[in-house]
């Protein structure tokens, strides 16, 4: 696979806000302009467009095509990726594939959603028939029973989970683009004492839906060199798994598709978890971070809390984690939220972390979680390993 022959040449993100007063396409246009400015590319050089799904765009069956039209991008490859919170990282993988296959040369990956201001979602899933009548509130309920089961099997260490919440919040304090409402310091006790949502899931375990956009510009390594862009980030390993264990009627909800996606990504990159310099896991709920540590091999299954106690996760720590606050402390930009941690990883590898720059930029690990299935953990898991010019 020629994924390593592609280069991320630019990244962009807007301020994350509680409710956007700008149209979702205007946010997209902000991202486009920012990427053109930072890379020196002309709009006409962009010949591919890949979008993450968007709650705002979800009423439109022509979402990628309509967005290309709004931004006046004439492209040879155009699609929306619809695997929930995995979509932004999966969009980057698909951009690399499309470039490698010769379908296009330069791709705008755009992650924009204004779910808080304009949610057009009309889900057609199991939910209306099988969970809504029981009062299931989607993700918080699922993470409630995932957490209860984890507690039963391994024990739940609230102070360890709180340590992750505090580390992410400290990142948001250093991130001017994080949602202002969330940029207030918290302690482990604040985390433990925060309001119960779906026992044992608390308010400070959970993401807050926000609005905003982010994006990446991806081109072939050859083209980046031709343009004189020496600062690039390269995807070197990727794994994706949707509907893990779909063919089984009973599953262990503490075992997730990241086990498989991670194995594939690490093998492709020729790395293991202990090689990772900074970690940018998808964070819809705090416990999801710990489950991913276990599934990706940072520690054994059930030993996440001990691993958390032994490591430091702020930007100066030995394993910097979601250094911009993650979604939980920067705000979840609807279905584009996976872009927040992805762009933070790229930002760090570009050395553009500013006040929160990590020291070790030899690589970064990004993940995605997408979709909440019936009585399981989540529907899609993706894992991407990035390096600076490799």
């Amino acid at each position, binding site marked *: 696979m020629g994924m390593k022959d592609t280069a991320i040449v630019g990244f962009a993100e807007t301020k994350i806000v509680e409710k956007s007063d700008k149209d979702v396409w205007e946010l997209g246009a902000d991202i486009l302009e920012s990427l053109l400015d930072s890379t020196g590319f002309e709009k006409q050089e962009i010949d591919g467009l890949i979008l993450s799904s968007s709650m705002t765009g979800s009423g439109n069956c022509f979402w990628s095509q309509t967005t290309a039209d709004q931004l006046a991008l004439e492209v040879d490859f155009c699609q929306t990726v619809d695997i929930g919170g995995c979509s932004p990282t999966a969009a980057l993988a698909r951009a690399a594939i499309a470039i490698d296959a010769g379908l296009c040369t330069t791709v705008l990956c755009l992650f924009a959603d204004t779910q808080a201001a304009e949610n057009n979602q009309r889900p057609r899933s*199991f939910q*209306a*028939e*099988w*969970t*809504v*009548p*029981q*009062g*299931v*509130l989607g993700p*918080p*309920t699922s993470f*409630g*029973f*995932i*957490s*209860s*089961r984890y507690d*039963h099997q391994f024990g739940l260490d609230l102070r360890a989970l709180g340590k992750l919440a505090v580390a992410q919040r400290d990142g948001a304090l250093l991130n001017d683009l994080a949602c202002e409402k969330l940029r207030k310091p918290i302690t482990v006790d604040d985390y433990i004492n925060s*309001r*119960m*949502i*779906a*026992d*044992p*899931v608390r308010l400070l375990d959970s993401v807050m839906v926000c609005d905003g956009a982010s994006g990446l510009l991806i081109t072939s390594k050859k083209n980046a060199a031709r343009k004189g862009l020496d600062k690039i980030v390269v995807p070197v390993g990727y794994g994706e798994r949707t509907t893990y264990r*779909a*063919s*089984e*009627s*009973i*599953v262990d*909800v503490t075992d997730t598709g990241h086990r498989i996606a991670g194995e594939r990504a690490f093998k492709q990159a020729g790395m293991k978890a202990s090689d990772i310099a900074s970690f940018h896991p998808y964070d819809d709920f705090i416990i999801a971070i710990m489950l991913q540590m276990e599934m990706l091999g940072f520690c054994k299954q059930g030993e996440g809390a001990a691993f958390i106690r032994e490591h430091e996760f702020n930007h100066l720590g030995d394993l910097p984690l979601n250094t911009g606050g993650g979604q939980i402390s920067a705000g979840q930009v609807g279905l584009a939220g996976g872009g927040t941690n992805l762009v933070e990883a790229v930002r760090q590898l570009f050395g553009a972390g500013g006040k929160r720059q990590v020291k070790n930029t030899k690589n970064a690990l990004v993940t995605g979680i997408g979709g909440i299935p*019936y*009585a399981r953990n989540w529907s899609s898991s993706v894992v991407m390993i990035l390096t600076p010019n490799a």
Partner: protein
Amino acid sequence: MTAINDTLHITREPPKWRTHSRPFWDATREKKLIIQYDKEVGKYQFFPRPTSIFTGKRRNLEWREVSGKGEVYSFTTVHRARPPFQGHEPFFIAVVRLKEDVQVMGNMVNCTLEQMKIGLPVKPYWAPLTNGTHLLMFEPDV
């Protein structure tokens, strides 16, 4: 003992069935639980799917009546809900593992906070819906 809302007085819209789930809902009119069984592999599946989750061969699926007895695999106590459940918190949502090895989600009734635990034996509780069908919930099997 800490009482948890049984949610029985909440008015719920009867779910719209799909062509492949209609037999399930029809059976609930008589408080019967039928679930899909793949006769080739000898395994059950839930919720009703358009095909066998095991083999992809829908012709091997049949409906079988089961007792609905099982035990709590996991649960959450919901403290924040949307209408029409809002204001009726706290209430339980349980994931129940039936004896037939399928996982089913449902509200738990007639159960205190102290009683609720993983491994608790449960049996079906059928809550009437306005169209004559019933919603499958659970209660302790004591």
